[in-house]
């Protein structure tokens, strides 16, 4: 049962890939960039889902995908001409299929009425009569684009006696003639193989004519008894297949020159088949020992070929299941078995994706951890070497440099494992665009740029919600209605562009629309009417744009079903900041708005400034630091016995003594000339932090404190320094929050009330 469940999970994982393929294929077709391959691939995707669903008796899924598939089949066979409406319907069906798969995965009941209308529309599109229900298990594959190539591979490594020629004669009467040229290397004799034995076995297959070639034989006095001088040409007339001949040479194939050619070019009966050819050729190339037979009577255990790739897997399965003598040649043999399967495929997979494996994320994380350790260890080793004054030796220096380079390369490669292209995430957004456009009666298309940019997997997961919200916003608030657009000379269909790029160690994700842009007058008056800003406040354009991020702000008066559900851009901003990102707006009236998210490359490392606080090293995240100062004592003022402010170019900022805040004070007074870091919190307030000295600025690997201990006030996490010591990473927002209550209580309260109002 558990096993079944795990197969089912695999199916759902594959479904995800297939659905993605389906959607991207449909979008290509809709945009008129599709070719026969695209329609084949969308058809295959739906078909595979149907097949798998049938195996798990997911009837809803089967019947929907069956109808869907029929339409696609008509499209493929040109019985139906694709137009925008049809593709819209198909895209909608792909969304529904997505939902169905999700419902099946989560064991939820599917409300068939939800898809009934769509199903009807699909049925009217399809020319086929689809009365009655589809029985998943007896579903035939006749309408499918390629014929399954049945190839169970039997992996018997010649341990059983050779079938007698007489028996074979009965089943396969046709006689073939093979010419075999065979030249053993001396290594073959070293391994104790005998030519006589091989010839005897050949003889058992049929009539043989053996000619020994002794041209290379040297004179008796020059002869090396360990050397091989002879070669043989054999003509064999047999009813057996080439594979049977190869089987005889199984154990010597690595130690000889072997060339088997068939005198009859045509191979007459079914048993031979082109597969034999392929296998035979690959044998000559690969020289791997194995015997195989083709037998059309033994059907594949799965009769639901999905793609050449899947077929290969099926073959591997079959190979493993047969009770064969599995030894380490198995893998090479299987690899060869797989080759003909791919080359004999009827489906053209021009853009075959690179081979991938699914790995438990935990293992990757462990590897990343260990590599982090390696980096630290390497730094410690360098330190030791310089301490031991061995650093002068040029050899030590160069080896150490290589070691450093290697460690860095390993770290990069390991980090790259976690990185994934944003494409799947971006593609999911096209559905959001479709749905949002439909419910707002606007026309919109999504343009993706840089979707192959790779981002840490965790970030991708966390980006889904903010992006969904931003895309909805862009369509709901950003784009105008088709009428308005036409009136202002724009194409009625609006464009939402979603782009990703690497820029100076950051990931930049932009959501832009070519809509009306931000109506700043409206935004400002709204903010005033909601009491978010004072009426007399003078704001520049950027400041007005940033009002959108205030809690409790919504530009649309009526709350639409889409965006404006009380969660505004402030939620988006908070979500993005929660994983170390920043968001900004750029808007041009009449031309559209652009939201730019900048993200760290990974959540595992952080750019930090290392500061000294009471002899402890504290890491301050670089993203929150605005500037660093060396204040004059006259700049610092006491406003109460426990509170200080600092005068920075005329404006006062609350000054927080880190040593005091973190309880690191060892009774000694803070240093005479402290440094001050100006930091900005998530809500844009500025504070000054006082520390003893700045040590360094670098990337640090984030380590959790909570795994083995628990949360520590004002500390976000820990990291390990080059010398192996642990340094703590400060949580700026928490540090200032506890202080803010004292200093800015009235203002805080006011905002809070508004947020709740």
């Amino acid at each position, binding site marked *: 049962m558990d096993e079944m469940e795990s197969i089912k999970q695999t199916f759902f994982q594959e479904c995800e890939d297939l659905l993605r393929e389906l959607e991207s294929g449909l979008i290509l077709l809709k945009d008129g960039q599709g070719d026969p391959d695209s329609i084949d691939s969308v058809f295959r995707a739906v078909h595979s889902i149907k097949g798998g669903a049938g195996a798990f008796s997911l009837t809803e899924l089967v019947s929907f995908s069956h109808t869907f598939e029929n339409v696609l089949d008509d499209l493929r066979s040109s019985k139906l001409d694709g137009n925008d409406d049809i593709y819209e319907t198909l895209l909608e069906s792909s969304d529904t299929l997505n939902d169905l798969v999700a419902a099946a995965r989560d064991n939820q009941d599917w409300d068939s009425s939800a898809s009934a209308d769509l199903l009807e529309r699909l049925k009217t599109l399809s020319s086929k009569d689809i009365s009655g229900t589809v029985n998943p298990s007896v579903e035939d594959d006749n309408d499918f684009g390629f014929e399954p190539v049945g190839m169970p591979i039997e992996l018997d490594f010649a341990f059983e006696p050779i079938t007698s020629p007489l028996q074979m004669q009965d089943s396969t009467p046709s006689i073939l003639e093979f010419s075999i040229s065979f030249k053993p290397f001396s290594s073959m004799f070293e391994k104790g193989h005998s030519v006589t034995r091989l010839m005897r076995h050949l003889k058992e297959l049929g009539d043989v004519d053996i000619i020994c070639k002794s041209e290379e034989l040297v004179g008796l006095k020059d002869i090396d008894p360990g050397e091989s001088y002879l070669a043989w040409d054999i003509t064999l007339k047999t009813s057996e297949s080439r594979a049977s001949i190869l089987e005889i040479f199984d154990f010597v194939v690595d130690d000889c020159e072997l060339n088997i050619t068939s005198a009859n070019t045509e191979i007459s009966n079914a048993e031979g088949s082109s597969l034999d050819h392929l296998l035979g050729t690959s044998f000559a190339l690969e020289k791997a020992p194995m015997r195989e037979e083709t037998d059309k009577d033994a059907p594949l255990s799965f009769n639901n070929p999905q793609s050449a790739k899947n077929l290969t897997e099926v073959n591997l399965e079959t190979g493993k299941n047969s009770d064969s003598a599995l030894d380490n040649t198995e893998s090479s043999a299987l690899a060869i078995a797989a080759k003909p399967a791919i080359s004999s495929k009827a489906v053209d997979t021009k853009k075959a994706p690179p081979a991938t494996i699914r790995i438990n994320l935990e293992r990757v994380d462990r590897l990343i*951890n*260990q590599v*982090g*350790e390696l980096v*630290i260890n390497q730094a410690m080793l360098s330190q030791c070497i310089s301490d031991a004054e061995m650093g002068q030796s040029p050899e030590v220096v160069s080896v150490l440099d290589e070691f450093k380079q290697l460690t860095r390369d390993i770290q990069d490669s390991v980090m790259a494992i976690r990185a994934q292209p944003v494409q799947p995430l971006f593609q999911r957004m096209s559905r959001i665009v479709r749905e949002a456009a439909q419910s707002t009666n606007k026309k919109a298309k999504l343009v993706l740029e840089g979707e192959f940019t790779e981002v840490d997997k965790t970030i991708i997961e966390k980006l889904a919600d903010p992006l969904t919200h931003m895309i909805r916003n862009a369509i709901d608030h950003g784009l105008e209605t088709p009428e308005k657009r036409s009136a202002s000379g724009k194409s009625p269909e609006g464009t939402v562009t979603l782009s990703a790029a690497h820029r100076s160690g950051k990931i930049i994700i932009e959501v832009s629309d070519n809509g009306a842009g931000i109506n700043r007058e409206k935004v400002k008056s709204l903010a005033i009417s909601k009491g978010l800003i004072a009426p007399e406040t003078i704001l520049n354009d950027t400041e007005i744009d940033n009002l959108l991020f205030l809690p409790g702000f919504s530009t649309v008066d009526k709350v639409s079903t889409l965006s404006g559900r009380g969660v505004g851009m402030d939620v988006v901003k908070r979500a993005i900041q929660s994983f170390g990102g920043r968001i900004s707006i750029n808007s041009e009236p009449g031309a559209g708005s652009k939201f730019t998210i900048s993200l760290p490359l990974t959540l595992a490392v952080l750019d930090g400034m290392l500061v000294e606080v009471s002899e*402890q*090293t504290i890491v301050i995240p670089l993203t929150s630091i605005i500037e660093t100062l060396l204040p004059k004592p006259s700049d610092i003022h006491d406003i109460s016995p426990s509170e200080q402010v600092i005068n920075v170019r005329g404006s006062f900022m609350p000054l927080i003594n880190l040593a005091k*805040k*973190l*309880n*690191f004070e060892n009774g000694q007074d803070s240093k005479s000339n402290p440094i001050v870091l100006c930091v900005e919190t998530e809500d844009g307030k500025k504070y000054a932090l006082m520390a003893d000295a700045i040590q360094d600025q670098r990337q640090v690997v984030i*380590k*959790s*404190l909570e*795994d*083995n*201990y*628990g*949360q*520590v*006030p*004002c*500390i976000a996490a*820990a990291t*390990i320094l080059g010398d*192996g*010591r*642990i*340094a*703590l990473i400060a949580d700026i927002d928490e540090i200032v929050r506890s202080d803010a209550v004292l200093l800015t209580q009235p203002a805080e309260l006011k905002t809070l009330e508004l947020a709740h109002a």
Partner: protein
Amino acid sequence: MRDIENAFTKNGNEFVIFFIGENEYCIDIMSLREIRSWTAPTSLPDSPAYVRGVINLRGAVVPIVDLALRLGLTPAEKTERSVIMITNIGDQMIGLSADAVSDILSIEQADIQAPPQMSAQTDNYFISGLVAMENRMISIIDPLRILPDKNETVAA
């Protein structure tokens, strides 16, 4: 003193014996992951005094509990013999400091006496049993109770 045969008897568990000041304590060897020489930990702000800080154990951040402080004793200066015993408690790793590790003994269940009920003193709370051996008294530490209570951490 060293009783090798004893360590391999079937009944009872093996315990690691260590010193804190003059007192002998022991801990079930199964809850020990490794013993390391003392390294100065990085202090944590707002933590109970007995949490000396955290150290780096091959990439993991491991908190160090000073057993002397935890047991209400005066901690000795850390010497070359001072150790950190890394324990696995639940799914957490915690380092316990001790002045020296001396021995591994197999102690039979029957030889373990319940700690006497003295008073509501917390110091006694960490001792799950006592073992009398020749003239010595060894207290068995219950690592589960050493663990800093999460609520306590916040309160402190």
